[in-house]
């Protein structure tokens, strides 16, 4: 395992360093590059949003970062350095040391992610007992505390409940309690609110914010919903066909995006603020088949700005000039009206307002 990251004098940027990460599934129909070379950095207590549609590889990315990908039929390349640990290539036994205690994950569907035949209290207490060596009584007491922390009413009673007896929102709260049981410093949240009602979604997102502040965690929020990342993240990554097509501070990406896909995604999303019957801009076609990815830019076949070069050569991530804002496109959109300086300032302000200090 590499420990050289510790020597870096800017720890805030190097809490999590992902470099050229690839995840390829070996299928009966050939290799399927679900994640095709992703690099980014994440600082302490920072919130990173990963946005993409189905098949963009965002879920696979989050699992590969954690090292949770199954071992068979999968090839992982590149590097994930997390707080002095190299994840790629580590054995399951090595990973087990940091799972739960340093990095934890919450999953999309709380119904299938909770063991249906075990009481929820036991599921929370399990890692306390096994990983932290608490006695069963201590674990139970702490589990009830955690249930209170995540806002579950009458936690003593709910301790005895089975997952099927809870509502969707309650189950997601239980998932959060399980993930946070051992005080991890990095939380990966994979579509944590998909399938929940809007009011419950707001509750869960507020809870996550609150807990992030309280417990001092970095969070990677994976979602398909641009609304979820818009106000809850410091930076975002936009993924398409397994690659990062744009990344930067949230405000920069929303207001000053360069990649046509990012714009298309934003324009095809209906908005509450738009008047009724606003014609949506659509992206023609469908996401590409990852088994038959062409040489060039994966978005080229659907892109209105595509040129011949786009289908021949794959664009790499280029800096825009704004700090930390990158895009991958041969024919980027023009620098938009929003002045760079003010947007940087307000992003910071925004971050302090809503996420933490």
């Amino acid at each position, binding site marked *: 395992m590499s420990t050289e990251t510790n020597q870096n004098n800017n720890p805030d940027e190097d809490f999590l360093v992902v470099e050229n990460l690839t995840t390829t599934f070996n299928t009966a129909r050939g290799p399927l590059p679900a994640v095709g070379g992703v690099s980014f950095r994440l600082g302490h207590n920072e919130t990173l949003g990963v946005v993409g*549609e*189905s098949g963009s590889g965002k879920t696979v990315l989050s699992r590969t970062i954690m090292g949770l990908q199954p071992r068979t039929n999968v090839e992982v390349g590149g590097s994930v350095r997390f707080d002095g640990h190299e994840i790629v290539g580590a054995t399951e036994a090595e990973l087990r040391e940091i799972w739960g205690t340093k990095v934890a994950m919450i999953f999309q569907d709380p119904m299938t992610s909770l063991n249906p035949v075990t009481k929820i209290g036991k599921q929370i207490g399990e890692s306390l007992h096994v990983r932290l060596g608490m006695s069963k009584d201590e674990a139970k007491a702490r589990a009830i505390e955690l249930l209170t922390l995540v806002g579950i009413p009458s936690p003593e009673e709910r301790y005895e409940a089975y997952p099927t007896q809870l*509502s*969707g*929102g*309650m189950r997601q709260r239980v998932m959060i309690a399980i993930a946070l049981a051992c005080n991890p410093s990095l939380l990966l949240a994979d579509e944590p609110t998909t399938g929940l*009602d*809007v*009011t*419950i*979604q*707001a*509750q869960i997102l*507020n809870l996550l914010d609150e807990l992030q502040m309280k417990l001092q965690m970095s969070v990677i929020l994976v979602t*398909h*919903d*641009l*609304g*979820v990342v*818009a*106000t809850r993240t410091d930076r975002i990554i936009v993924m398409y066909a397994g690659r990062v097509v744009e990344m930067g501070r*949230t*405000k920069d990406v*929303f*207001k000053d995006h360069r990649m046509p896909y990012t714009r*298309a*995604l*934003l324009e*095809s*999303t*209906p*908005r*509450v*603020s*738009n*008047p*009724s*019957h*606003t*014609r*949506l*801009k*659509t*992206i*023609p076609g*469908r*996401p590409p088949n990852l088994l038959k990815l062409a040489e060039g830019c994966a978005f080229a076949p659907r892109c209105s700005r595509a040129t011949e070069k786009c289908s021949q050569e794959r664009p790499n991530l280029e800096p825009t000039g704004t700090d930390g804002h990158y895009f991958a496109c041969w024919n980027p959109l023009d620098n938009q009206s929003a002045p760079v300086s003010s947007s940087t300032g*307000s*992003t910071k302000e*925004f971050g302090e307002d*809503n996420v933490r200090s």
Partner: protein
Amino acid sequence: MSEASKNVVLSVKDLEVTFRKGRQRVSAVAGISFDLYEGETLGLVGESGCGKSTTGRALMQIVPSTGGEIYVDGAELTSLSKKEARSLRRKMQMIFQDPISSLNPRRRVKDIVAEPLDCWKTAKGEERDAIVYDLLNKVGIDPAVYGNRYARQFSGGQCQRISIARSLAMRPRLLICDEVVSALDVSIQAQILNLLEDLKKEYGLTMLFIAHDLAVVKNISDRVAVMYLGKLCEIGPSDTLYAKPAHPYTSFLLGAALEADPEIEQNRATLSGEPPSPLHPPSGCRFRTRCPFATEKCASEEPMLRDIGAGQQVACHYPLVGSHQ
């Protein structure tokens, strides 16, 4: 949009749907009334379990309604014989949430689209094929390439296009869309929403659009109705209702909706708790247990849907917006 001069295509009066769960009774839809005018789209929005899908299904008589009346072009649906109801239902069609499961995986696309024609025996042979060809073209599925494929070979978005083609084969007056885009990705969702808008114009459809996504509903609807725990809270023209919600629940719902824009300040005051069980709905106003403005009156007296002007109706004793006059 809702001028009296317009024809009423669908009129619902005090619709009730009660399910039996063991010895208990769950009233999924507890008496709702609304009118649907020719050529308009009414959005029906609410959180899961509020009874919006059950309403749609009761209108199609997929689940039996246990009370109230449904008028389609003036004819009352529930009192008709099975046979008469069946033929009246030709005027109404429905598209479902799960695009993949709503197509039979073991049948060919062109047969799926032709299903209504075959059922009603309205077109045969070349005429039938021509209609199918035309419909598939309209929804953007190339019939020459895909017509003979099986439904299981298509993605969600394509399946939804096929479903739409099928629902239009009988040229219905009324189309009920039940969460038709909620299983789809944003880019595909936009395609389907635009397609529905186009087809609505072309076929002169009247639509009931049921969904949980507030932005989607606003985008497609002329008027929007908000449901909570089996009751209508509020109904009104989309732009008015979204700009000036009169019912506290509508206001909270809009506040919780996330906008894809980091500059819009999110309303952090969210509703606390979860909706009560429909097995034991609260007395009076059903929202009162979570409503910050609730008083004793709300517990004792059920608020009726009343006009507050500009086509907006609200069921609340203390609406946030007074009269529009």
